[in-house]
């Protein structure tokens, strides 16, 4: 594991090193090129900011209003007879919106039910296999100013839900 993670950590530095050396070898003014590319960054982020803000308002108020706890309790009514830990749904609901928030919930699960429990295993696999869907949607669509998204949002929602069901079945089968 240590060697693998070392190799992965080395990926970005190796990529940067290669890019700069290759550019230099090809006679590119690497410093000027870098600066002219990097100057576009701030413009992109200014364009994205309102979208990110909208998503954050939705997530933070959803948590603070108690709506999140309510939905979690609803799920636990369904989940208990199936022997699925209710905490899993917290991660599943929050992960599509915010990585930081879902990490917080995951850490709570680790503390409360132990790192080798079924709840922790399921939550861990969801953490690894799900994405921050709405954040990605907001940022990627915001970056190019797309407003008409056709059927993208329902597809993403359906895919996320299927993903969680797959994880629950898979972890149930394997442990």
């Amino acid at each position: 594991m240590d060697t693998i993670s070392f190799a992965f950590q080395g990926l970005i530095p190796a990529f940067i090193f290669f890019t700069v050396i290759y550019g230099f070898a090809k006679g590119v003014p690497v410093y000027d090129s870098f600066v002219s590319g990097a100057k576009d960054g701030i413009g992109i982020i200014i364009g994205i900011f309102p979208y990110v803000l909208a998503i954050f308002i939705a997530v933070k108020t959803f948590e603070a209003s108690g709506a999140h706890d309510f939905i979690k309790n609803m799920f636990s009514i369904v989940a208990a007879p199936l022997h699925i830990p209710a905490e899993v749904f917290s991660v599943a609901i929050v992960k599509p919106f915010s990585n930081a928030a879902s990490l917080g919930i995951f850490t709570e699960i680790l503390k409360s039910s132990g790192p080798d429990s079924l709840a922790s295993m399921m939550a861990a696999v969801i953490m690894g296999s799900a994405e921050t869907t709405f954040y990605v949607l907001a940022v990627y669509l915001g970056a190019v100013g797309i407003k008409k998204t056709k059927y993208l949002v329902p597809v993403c929602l359906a895919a996320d839900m299927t993903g969680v069901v797959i994880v629950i079945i898979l972890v149930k089968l394997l442990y």
Partner: protein
Amino acid sequence: MNTVWLVVVCISIVFAAINGRIDGFTKAMFEAGKAAVEVCLYLVGIVSLWLGLTKILEDSGLIYKLSNFFRPAISFLFKNIPEGHPSITSMTLNLLANLFGLGNAATPLGIKAMEDLQTLNTENDTITFEMMLFIVINTSSIQLIPFTTIGLLASYGSQNPNVIILPTIIATVISSATAVGILYLFKKFSRKDR
């Protein structure tokens, strides 16, 4: 997105009222503002960094070699993208970054990919099928080894945190395939959009 946002915000307001947490709601809104600024400030740095690096790749011509190299794999899915188009490279780099769990690198490269895809778009504010496919693959996340999660499991004293690797890979592959399948299903039933 309009519907999703409206529903979530309305639910929050109603629940805040019922639970007597209106003050919490207001506080959360200001916290959201702060968090959004923090995230964007952080993004300015890395997005600019990656844009600078990809500019070097572009000027040195390497980006075109890379895109030719990955062309077969990407064009299998993205059939309508012309040969040698920069979006192939930016999408490839983004997907590779995701694969290796390099989230910090993946977002800027994804934004770059969206901009490259936008150059092929004839209607500026309407999404193309290629964009949808790219986003769907992105949001179903193809990741080989979830380092953060394993790290957390280990730090809380898990006996063998690596056991989650296999189910994570299986789950991510199945869910990505399902996601692409669902997208094609929707495409099939909304012919009028094409």
